[in-house]
């Protein structure tokens, strides 16, 4: 059994196994806690701050077969200046694209602080041999990606071969080196809270800088409940190993109200350290549009229409 270096810390597989085995979850209590956190009311100034924060945490995403150079330029322009008529709205954290489009996105984000994230390891299914996943990831990094979003091997995970899941992430992290690694659990495929917790811990132990809920390609996307399980795993991991990892929620978060509920949960459970794009992100395509609408609504008092904001 070899010791793997992640974040400068060695985590032996036996330790990972030990953590994974302590994965029982009180689902009734969890549901209750998550639901109670959704009832907070955030008003006026705090709301405006939350909305701006959400924008700065967004990974503006397009992952379609129809993506073209033109579509990427349009999206990057929106990422840098989400609302061209309001300079107080910050840039988003990153744009997220397929590996073949990274070089285009990279060129367009020059002179801004927007990062380029690439999905790799044969997103969204990940159903290819390991060599191909490594190649896919290497290609994205060579093209200039600042962040890599990979998917875990759900086939291996659901068959109970946790070691394989772990080894694959470790191997991909080796390719990434200093490039930020986000590991997608695809919570919709994992079905149970216990599975989400196990997958979270395995991914963290294997060296992921972030764990991410979903690909956005399933009908079941992120849920606050799944996010709660993940944030608890991140906290437990921090208390055992001393490393702070981030969380990215993606898929199905369409409105500002829902996004604010995530922020409330993160703040209450993890503390304000995590309220930063360094440690918390939203994967978004339609979310940003609603947030921009709400920001303008707060400033003008008038409910807004989508067609007054840039597309992208």
């Amino acid at each position: 059994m070899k010791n793997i270096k992640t974040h400068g810390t060695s985590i032996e597989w036996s330790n990972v196994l030990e953590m994974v085995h302590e994965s029982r979850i009180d689902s009734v209590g969890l549901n209750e806690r998550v639901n109670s956190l959704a009832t907070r009311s955030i008003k006026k100034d705090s709301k405006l701050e939350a909305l701006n924060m959400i924008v700065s945490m967004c990974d503006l995403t397009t992952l379609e077969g129809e993506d073209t150079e033109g579509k990427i330029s349009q999206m990057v322009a929106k990422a840098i200046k989400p609302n061209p008529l309001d300079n107080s709205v910050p840039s988003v954290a990153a744009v997220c694209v397929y590996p073949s489009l990274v070089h285009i996105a990279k060129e367009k984000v020059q002179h801004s602080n927007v990062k380029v994230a690439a999905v790799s390891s044969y997103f969204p299914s990940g159903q290819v041999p390991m060599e191909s996943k490594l190649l896919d990831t290497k290609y994205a990094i060579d093209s200039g990606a600042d962040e890599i979003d990979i998917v875990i091997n759900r086939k291996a995970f659901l068959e109970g071969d946790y070691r394989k899941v772990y080894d694959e992430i470790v191997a991909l992290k080796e390719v990434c080196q200093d490039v930020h690694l986000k590991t997608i659990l695809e919570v919709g495929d994992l079905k149970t809270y216990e599975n989400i917790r196990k997958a979270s811990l395995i991914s963290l132990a294997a060296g992921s800088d972030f764990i991410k809920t979903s690909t956005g390609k399933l009908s079941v996307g992120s849920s606050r409940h799944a996010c709660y399980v993940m944030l608890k795993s991140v906290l437990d991991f921090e208390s055992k190993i001393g490393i702070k990892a981030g969380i990215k929620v993606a898929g199905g978060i369409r409105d500002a109200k829902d996004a604010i509920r995530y922020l409330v949960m993160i703040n209450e459970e993890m503390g304000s350290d995590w309220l930063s794009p360094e440690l918390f992100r939203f994967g978004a395509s339609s979310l940003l549009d609603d947030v921009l609408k709400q920001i303008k609504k707060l400033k003008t008092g008038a409910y807004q229409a989508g067609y007054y904001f840039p597309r992208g």
Partner: protein
Amino acid sequence: MIDIKKTYKNYVDGKYVRSESGKTYTKELKNEFYELPLTSKKDIRDAVTSSKNGYKKWSSATPYLRMQILYRLSEMIEGNKESYVELLMDHGLTKQKATKDIDESIQNIVWFAGLADKWEQLAGNLNPVSEEYFNISHQNPIGVVFSLSSSNVSLNELLMSILPSLTVGCSVISYSEENSVLALKFAEDINNSDFPSGSLNILSGKFENILNDVSKHVEINLVALHKELDKEGLKTIEQNASESVKRVFSQPSIEGLSSILPYLETKTVWHPKGT
């Protein structure tokens, strides 16, 4: 026999809902007190979201289908005629006047149902141009319409504040203050007539509470006021509406074909004649 009283609710997105605020206001009719939903600005927001979706469904329906649904509405009211007459009498109308009002209502619905597939021929036209082109003024529904109904207790007047815009394919948010019991009863027949959800939302409350939010809401395309407002109120509405280039009509015509004209937007098309 136990006398069971009805709780009137707003009709939004094909569902009967209480005001999000939980607030009500009271109306007394014949020594009975009706608790009616006091629409809040968030209810307006929800209604507009619904109307926006309703507009897609309703405006893309074929004129033939719109005609059938409108005709169905007249059938429903015909079937419930007695209860309408009774309610109008509770409001203080004589039986004769109440019956006349309902009869006129039914006739008007049938007239507009008939107009559903004819208005475009009547309102649109071929423009005379000197070149070898067809120049066509094609008429489109304007979008989401907010209609403040008249303060007179009359189903016919309520309908005349809704039917013209609905017939051409607009989705309508109808808001009633004085005659809200009647409007919310009418919502039940709307529900039974196969209108797509969101094409017609019916709300009750005090207009002054929501005047600002309605006139500022960017996604409402037109405000029709079928009730005389004080000068100041109208000015506020017009000023707010100008921010989003919203059209405002105070007491628009309800006579014949001219009634539908405010709700249309003209698109002009040039097409070569190809001699």
